[in-house]
């Protein structure tokens, strides 16, 4: 008697344990699935069961389902054929979500939504051929015609729990229906991984991040990828580390591939997104290669480019320094007012005798007030004796032009204060 009670107890415990299990082994499809984290639905608007493992050579493996994929929908199809079972199939399809999905023999897929459970979509079917469409009904609105022939009724089951999964599979396999898993990517994970890789300062992240920038069609991934590359470039140029990992990163960046990528994607003709172009300029400004002078000058002179980016290209050239002076002077001399402004400002940042002399000459000869203001500012930055002399000469010359004069007074005042 006691043994009987004990074994009964054991069975009850076993049933409980099995009932509480959050995993399920699907013997037919040869996969293990796991109940999804309860708050994924709230936080990421996601539902489903997760594939924990796929057994080799099973139906799931043949379909190339992968571990970790999230099955959010199981979609079955009730094929109508000539004998037809439309009524029953439609009822099943609409059972959960009041949606009737039909695939016609001409390949059209039509989704008919009724307002409440029990409402009719408004069509009658004989075998698999539509023989009546009610005026004003969802079917009529979807332009279904009498005589259209239905290939299959599609039943889309949203999966929230393991029980939902079991029920859907059981139902569809019973009817020999075609089964499709619709999987969902967990939003944010890849973006977070891309961002984190920018922080970890590891050389191994460089190639995969470059692949994303070059090959992904997903802008929400490409933007963080280029930002992370820029972070890694920053890391590689800082002199505070000297670990093996850091040296590997420095070598990796020094191989020039990231530089080549930045020089390519800074171009408007190659990259449509301005944030990516901007970040590329940032990378070039940190690496400061001579080879970027041409491309940065081109961006600076590109009248179709966003003003902010053109200006940033000028700053990039300033960062490159003395090597960029020739190119900047050429651009200054041939360019329109905008180019002159940016180039003058960059020449002021870089300084040097040649920059100074070009700016002094221009200040004498140019009429445009904005450019003259920029040149005054640039010469003030250079701040050597000839520059100050040139500014003082201008003060005498432009006594009548109030805005320029005010600015000159301000600049000269500051220079004086600095020299004291």
């Amino acid at each position, binding site marked *: 008697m006691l043994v009987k009670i004990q074994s009964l107890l054991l069975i009850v415990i076993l049933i409980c344990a099995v009932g509480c299990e959050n995993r399920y082994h699907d013997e037919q499809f040869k996969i293990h699935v796991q109940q999804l984290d*309860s708050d994924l639905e709230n936080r990421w608007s996601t539902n489903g069961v*997760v594939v924990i493992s796929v057994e080799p050579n099973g139906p799931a493996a043949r379909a190339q389902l992968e571990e*970790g994929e999230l099955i959010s929908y199981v979609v079955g199809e009730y094929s109508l054929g000539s004998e037809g079972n439309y009524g029953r199939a439609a009822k099943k399809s609409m059972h959960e979500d009041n949606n009737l999905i039909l695939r016609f023999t001409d390949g059209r897929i039509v989704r008919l939504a009724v307002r409440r459970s029990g409402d009719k979509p408004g069509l009658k079917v004989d075998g698999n051929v539509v023989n009546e469409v009610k005026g004003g009904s969802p079917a009529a609105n979807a332009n279904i015609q009498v005589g259209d022939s239905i290939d299959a009724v599609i039943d889309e089951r949203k999966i929230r729990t393991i029980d939902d999964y079991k029920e859907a599979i059981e139902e569809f396999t019973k009817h020999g229906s075609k089964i499709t898993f619709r999987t969902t990517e967990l939003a944010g*994970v890849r973006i977070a*991984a891309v961002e984190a890789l920018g922080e*970890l300062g590891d050389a*191994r992240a460089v190639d995969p991040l470059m692949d994303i920038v070059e090959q992904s069609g997903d802008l929400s991934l490409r933007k963080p990828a280029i930002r992370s590359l820029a972070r890694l470039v920053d890391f590689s140029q800082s002199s505070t580390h000297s670990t093996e990992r850091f040296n590997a990163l420095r070598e990796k960046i020094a191989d020039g591939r990231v530089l080549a990528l930045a020089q390519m994607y800074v171009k408007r003709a190659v990259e449509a997104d301005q944030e990516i172009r901007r970040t590329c300029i940032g990378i070039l400004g940190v690496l400061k290669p001579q080879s970027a002078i041409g491309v940065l000058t081109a961006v600076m002179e590109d009248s179709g480019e966003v003003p902010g980016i053109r200006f940033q290209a000028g700053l990039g050239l300033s960062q490159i320094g003395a090597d960029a002076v020739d190119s900047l002077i050429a651009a200054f001399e041939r360019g329109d007012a905008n180019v002159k402004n940016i180039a003058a400002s960059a020449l002021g940042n870089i300084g040097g005798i040649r920059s100074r002399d070009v700016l002094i000459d221009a200040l004498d000869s140019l009429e445009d007030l904005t450019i003259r203001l920029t040149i005054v500012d640039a010469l003030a930055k250079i701040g050597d004796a000839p520059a100050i002399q040139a500014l003082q000469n201008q003060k005498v010359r432009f006594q009548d032009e109030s805005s320029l004069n005010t600015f000159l007074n301000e600049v000269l005042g500051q220079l004086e204060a600095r020299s004291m």
Partner: protein
Amino acid sequence: MNRCLRGSIISICLAVFLVSCGSHNEYLSKGKELIKSERRRKEERAVAQFKLAIQQEPSNAEAHYLLGFYDSQEFYNAKSSSENWEEYWEKASTENRGKHMFLAYQQEQNKYLEILVFETLRRNEPGVQNAALNALKRIYKQGDRDKLLKSLKKAIKSKDNRDRHDAHWVLAEIGKDAPGTIVPLLVELLDHKRKETRLNAVKALGEIRDENAIPELVKIVNSGSAKRAKDRESPEVRQLAVEALGKIGGAAVKELVEIAENKGSSLRVDAIQALATLGDERAVNPLLNALGEQGSREVEIKF
């Protein structure tokens, strides 16, 4: 508004407390009068009275407590009239204010333990709170440890958010020096019925940064996929548990990597972000794998 209300409640409590404690020490009475008054620099002047009160009666608990409470380094600087300002400045340090509060506790243990945990910590002034923390740390080392922990447990289980928050802070600070005692106490609280208590316990465990808390924190994180709703911890607590693992770092990196790799977890992004700040090399490969994950798609199963 809230702060104002809280301030006035504390002031009233303090006033009642001051009035109710009858004292024969003249300086003490004068100091208390000053505090209640609207006079200029009243606290600074009251402090001078409390010091005299202690000189007269070195074992006066109330004078010690009030001196610890009100003395402040802000009263003393080179510009002040006193010649010995440096000495006074030193005496008003957190360390010394805590010492006075502790001396009050030594005279009347139960009374001042209650006051320190449920009143002093509530004062919205870092100087007072730090002095109280210092006193409580002294009690932990030299006083009745069991009663102190009992009192802090009561506070972290309290209905009042301020008590819970203050207690979590004190437990975390004591726990940094004595993880062997405090971590198990906090772990026990992870099963408490009040979510906010569990939340504060998790936060404190993160701040202590003791690796012994890792398994319990992992258990909380993973409870999200439990089949029965009652076995699942709430999302906020679980999220904080990931954050706590991020603060612990070290051996927690392995666990964070596992969470980041668990494709059924809602906390993958949190775990990845924690790994990003830790900068540990072990995170690189799992993150590279995450980049290669499948996007949304349809897979037809033939059977």
